[in-house]
């Protein structure tokens, strides 16, 4: 019994220490005097790597999810002669839930894992140690631009996902299933609120972006500098990020829409 308690306690303390280290990494990387001349080009480069390179998978996924929503929504709503509301259903599902959550899951898989592998490899090949010995802080040079790029690109990708998804839903509903386009767009316009729906969706994606990039860079920094260690860290980034996204989504949804 005592052994179980000791093992559990040690595991808890290790996790707590890990969280403390991750927080210190975040503080050192973000809370520094800004140096726009050097920081902005680095952030732009990372925006391309993290954001632009994720565009295709996000847009294609958004298109298909929107099309499926249109199809499923129509088959359900047509039984109640409410197929005009399919636009509302597609838009609210995407803007409130699917765009932030699915974008975040895809972002964790594409950009998060790439960030962890890149930083892990830089550690394994002593590039981070080399930066330190040149007198450059890797937290500011390597970690901070990636964190900012993640925070900035996630909400933008989420919005692109939602827009493409709505068009996907419109193509299926209007052009294929014959829903009247005037009803489709006007019902959507009247039912989607900017603050309650759009803004809350953006806040969700901001939080997810923050969590994913934080997990990804920390896993890269603390990875064991071997091929197995980097592979494990990459997997952990995807697993931890996905779990955190789903758990945080529930918490945020409860806070935003649960009237609590």
């Amino acid at each position, binding site marked *: 019994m005592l052994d179980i308690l000791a093992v559990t306690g040690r595991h808890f303390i290790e996790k707590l220490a890990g969280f403390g280290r991750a927080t210190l990494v975040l503080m*050192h990387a973000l809370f520094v005097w800004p140096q726009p001349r050097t920081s902005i080009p680095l952030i732009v480069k990372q925006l391309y790597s993290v954001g632009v390179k994720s565009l295709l998978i996000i847009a294609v996924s958004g298109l298909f999810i929107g099309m499926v929503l249109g199809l499923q929504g129509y088959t359900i709503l047509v039984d109640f002669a409410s197929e005009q509301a399919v636009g509302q259903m597609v838009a609210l599902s995407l803007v409130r839930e699917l765009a932030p959550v699915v974008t975040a899951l895809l972002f964790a898989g594409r950009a998060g894992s790439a960030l962890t592998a890149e930083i892990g490899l830089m550690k394994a*090949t*002593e*590039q981070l*140690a080399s930066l330190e010995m040149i007198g*450059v802080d890797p937290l500011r*040079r390597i970690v901070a631009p990636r964190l900012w790029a993640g925070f900035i690109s996630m909400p933008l990708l989420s919005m692109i996902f939602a827009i493409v998804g709505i068009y996907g839903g419109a193509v299926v509903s209007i052009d294929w299933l014959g829903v009247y386009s005037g009803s489709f767009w006007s019902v959507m316009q009247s039912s989607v609120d900017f603050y309650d729906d759009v803004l809350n969706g953006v806040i969700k994606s901001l939080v997810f972006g923050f969590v994913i990039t934080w997990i990804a860079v920390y896993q890269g920094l603390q990875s064991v500098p071997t091929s197995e260690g980097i592979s494990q860290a990459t997997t952990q980034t995807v697993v931890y990020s996905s779990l955190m996204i789903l758990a945080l989504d529930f918490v945020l949804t409860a806070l935003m829409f649960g009237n609590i």
Partner: protein
Amino acid sequence: MSVSENVIQISNLKFMRADRCIFKDINISIPKGKITAIMGPSGTGKTTLLKLIGGQLTPDSGRVTVRGSDVHSLARAELFALRKKMGMLFQSGALFSDMSVFENVAFPLQVNTDLDAELIRDIVLLKLQAVGLRGAIDLMPSELSGGMARRVALARAIALDPEIVMYDEPFAGQDPIGMGVLVTLIKKLNQSLGHTSVIISHDIQETLSIADYICILADGEVIAQGTAAQIRESSSEKVQQFIHGYPDGPVPFHFPSVNLMDQLIG
């Protein structure tokens, strides 16, 4: 030798890694302007010692002072400022894989000085000329051989003309020509730039040929210190085993284990 002449002073250093004691209580003085070699069998913590000098690791007890500053009591910003006075050649070269040879060598100058681009280019050309790789200026690290990458890394390590240059296994994996080039380079750079060199190496003959002062580590302790001649004449069995490469001796060939027959039978 007085303390004032020592640019690096290691005093009563103790360092543990998990439950394993890497350094028990070591004292090493590294004189200014000389080439000091730190040698010893694999796993004795030679690279760890460089990381302790550079402040990348923290000792359990003891002090490491560089240019009079206690490395491990400096604030983060002060430590990074001190590192600008130190250059390090990593065992793997540690070139930035997304930068060309020029960008790698120019990087320390770009981030640590206000020199204009033209002057930086001239300095980079001179540093690459010193290591014989001016013609490789536009290549990427992936296009370089191991020896060339090490020489580019050396050019980067001396780009800021540091007061101290630390070399981690500079001769490892080099062919005889590459090794000869590096030995000559390290000696010439030390003489012409007047910096202090610390070399970690296993290559006895090459290292003894250029080192002014040698320190041999084993079992977490300094087992011998002195000039090349003093080391060669050392009466210590461990030192003799190490410099002559005897497979068995005070440093055992076999990793500690139970008796072979006992294990085979049962």
